[in-house]
C-alpha cells in the first residue's frame, strides 16, 4: 500500500520533472512527442497501481472511468497539440473545431447542393401544416444521414434474408453446396466496390439508388450465405437427429433446430456484414452520389474544408456504433439462452 503510494508519487514527479526540465532547457518543442509518449507510459503505470487498491464495489466505476476517460484525454491532447501548433490545425483541426463543424452541418442547409445532414427535422411541423406528409417527405429527402441509412437498411435486408436462406440450403444439401461453394468463395474475395461499375450497367438509371443498394446487398448476401452455411454445418448432428426423432417436419426443423442452432454464427456474420456494408456504402458515396454521409465527407475534402470532412467521419463513426448497438440488442432478444 505505502509502497504503491510512493511509486505513484514518484511517477507523477517524474512526469512533471520531464516536462518542466525540457521547458526550462528550451528543448520542449523539439522533444514534445517523445515526452508526451513517455507521459502516457507513466499514466499507465500510475493507473495500474491505483487499480490494485480499488475496492470491489467501486470496480465498475473505475473500469468505466478508464474506458471513457482515456478517449477524452486523447481528445484533450489533440486539442492542446493543435493549440500549441505541434500538429497543423488546418489539416488536423482540433476536436473543438470539428465539433463546431458538426454543429454547423447539422443545423444548416446547403443551398448549393440542396442538402443537409439531418434533413432539418425541426421544420417538420411547419412543412406538415403547409403541404402534408408529401412535404415532410421532400424535406427529409434532403438529408445525407437518412440517405445513407436508407441505403444501408435496404441493402442489408435485401442481402441478409436471401443470404441466410441460401446458406441454410447450402448447409443442409451437399449437392447445392458443391455446386456453389467455389463460385461464392471467388466472389467473396472480390472487393465489392470493384463490381460497382458492372452493377451500374445493369440499371436503367445507373446513377440512381438501385445500384448503390444492390452493391451493399450483394456484399451482405455473400457474407451471410457463407456464414450461415458454416453455422448450419457446425450444428451438432445429434440435434438434427433429436429434432427428427421427436417428429419435427421440415419447417419445424428450420424454426426449432436449424436456425437457432446456427444463430450464433449468423449473428457473428451479421456483425461483419454490417462493417462491410458501411465500407461499401461510404466508398460508393465517395465515387458516385449527390447525397449521403460519404458524399458529404468527400465533398468537403474536395472543397478543402477539413473540419467538415472530419465531421463527416464522426457521423460515420456514430452511425456504425449505433447500428452495431442495434444488432446487439436484436441478438439479445433473439438469443436469450446466451445470457
Amino acid at each position, binding site marked *: 500500500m505505502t509502497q504503491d503510494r510512493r511509486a505513484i508519487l514518484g511517477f507523477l514527479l517524474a512526469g512533471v520533472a520531464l516536462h518542466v526540465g525540457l521547458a526550462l532547457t528550451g528543448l520542449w518543442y523539439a522533444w514534445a512527442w517523445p515526452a508526451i509518449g513517455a507521459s502516457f507510459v507513466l499514466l499507465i503505470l500510475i493507473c495500474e497501481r491505483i487499480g490494485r487498491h480499488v475496492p470491489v464495489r467501486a470496480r465498475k466505476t473505475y473500469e468505466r472511468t478508464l474506458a471513457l476517460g482515456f478517449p477524452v484525454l486523447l481528445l484533450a491532447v489533440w486539442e492542446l497539440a493543435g493549440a500549441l501548433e505541434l500538429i497543423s490545425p488546418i489539416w488536423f483541426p482540433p476536436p473543438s473545431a470539428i465539433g463546431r463543424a458538426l454543429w454547423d452541418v447539422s443545423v444548416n442547409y446547403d443551398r448549393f447542393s440542396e442538402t443537409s445532414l439531418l434533413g432539418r427535422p425541426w421544420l417538420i411541423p411547419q412543412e406538415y401544416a403547409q403541404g402534408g406528409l408529401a412535404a415532410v417527405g421532400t424535406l427529409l429527402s434532403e438529408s445525407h444521414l437518412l440517405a445513407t441509412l436508407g441505403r444501408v437498411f435496404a441493402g442489408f435486408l435485401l442481402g441478409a434474408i436471401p443470404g441466410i436462406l441460401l446458406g441454410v440450403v447450402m448447409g443442409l444439401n451437399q449437392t447445392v453446396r458443391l455446386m456453389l461453394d467455389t463460385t461464392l468463395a471467388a466472389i467473396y474475395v472480390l472487393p465489392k466496390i470493384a463490381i460497382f461499375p458492372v452493377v451500374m450497367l445493369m440499371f436503367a438509371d445507373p446513377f440512381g439508388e438501385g445500384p448503390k443498394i444492390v452493391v451493399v446487398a450483394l456484399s451482405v448476401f455473400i457474407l451471410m450465405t457463407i456464414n450461415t452455411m458454416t453455422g448450419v454445418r457446425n450444428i451438432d448432428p445429434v*440435434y438434427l437427429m433429436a429434432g427428427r*426423432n421427436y417428429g419435427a417436419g421440415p419447417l419445424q426443423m428450420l424454426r*426449432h433446430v436449424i436456425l437457432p442452432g446456427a444463430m450464433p454464427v449468423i449473428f457473428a456474420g451479421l456483425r461483419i456484414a454490417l462493417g462491410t456494408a458501411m465500407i461499401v456504402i461510404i466508398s460508393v458515396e465517395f465515387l458516385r452520389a449527390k447525397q449521403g454521409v460519404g458524399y458529404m465527407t468527400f465533398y468537403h475534402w474536395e472543397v478543402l474544408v477539413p473540419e467538415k470532412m472530419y465531421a463527416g467521419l464522426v457521423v460515420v463513426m456514430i452511425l456504425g456504433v449505433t447500428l452495431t448497438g442495434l444488432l446487439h440488442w436484436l441478438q439479445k432478444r433473439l438469443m436469450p*439462452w446466451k445470457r
Partner: protein
Amino acid sequence: MAPSDPKISARNVTKVYQTASGPMTAVDDFSLDVAEGEFLAIVGPSGCGKSTFLRMLAGLEDISSGQLTIRPGADPSTPLNSVVFQEYAIFPWKTVIQNVAFGLQMRGVSERARMDVARGWLDRVGLAKFADHYPHQISGGMKQRVSIVRALANDPEVLLMDEPLGALDAQTRVVLQEELLRIWEETRKTVVYITHSLDEAVLLGDRVVLMSAQPGRILDVYQIDLDRPRSIDTMNLPAFAEYRAAIWDRLSAEVTRAMEMQP
C-alpha cells in the same frame, strides 16, 4: 397382428459403413425380439455398434440389410419411439420445460396441455424449480434427467435409451437408477436400454443382451429372473451377484479381445 407378437423384431440386421479404408461392418446379423412391456438391456465393449443399432431402430440410420420393425400401438397418434441420446442432445436454445414439451409441440399439442404434461414430469424428477432455466445453467445430472423426461413426456410406444446415465458420478447415478426403476414400474413401457455398466443392466433389465466387439454380434442373451419391483437393495441379493459374475466372464474376455484388436 396379435398382441402377443413381439413389440420390436429384428431379423438379420446388418450395418456396413463405407469408410475411406473400405467397408466396415458395425452390426452383423443381429436378430432379436422384444416383447411388449419388456425392459431389454444391451451391454458390450465400446465401439461394438450399440448406438448404431439403436439409431437404426429409431429410424435415424439406414439398415444395410435385414429387417427391423416396431409394432405400432392401438392409437396411431402415439409416436413409435423416442430416443434418449448418449450425448443428451437437449437443445441449448430452449428452456428446460420447452425441451421436455418438445415432442408434444411437434405433434401439435396445445401450449397449455403440453406445458401441463411437461411440468408434471419435471415435478416427478424434482426439476420443477428449474423449468425456466436454460441447459447451460444446470448441472450434467440435471441435463440427463431433462433428456430422459423429454422422452417420457412424449409417451412413445417404445423408449430407446443410449447410456442415459453414462456421464454421471457414482452417487447421482444410483439416485437416477432408483428413479428409473420407479418410473418404469409405473409406466411399464417397452424399453431398449444401452449401458456400459453391468450392474445397471442386471438391475434394470428383464433380459441382458451381450454384444461382441467388431463386428457387433449377439454373443449371448441372459434372462434376469429377479423379482419386481426392484430397488438398489436388489443389488445385495446373491442371485444378483451370480448373474453379474456369469455375464462378466464373457464380457471381460470380449473386452480384452476388443482392446487387442485396436491398432
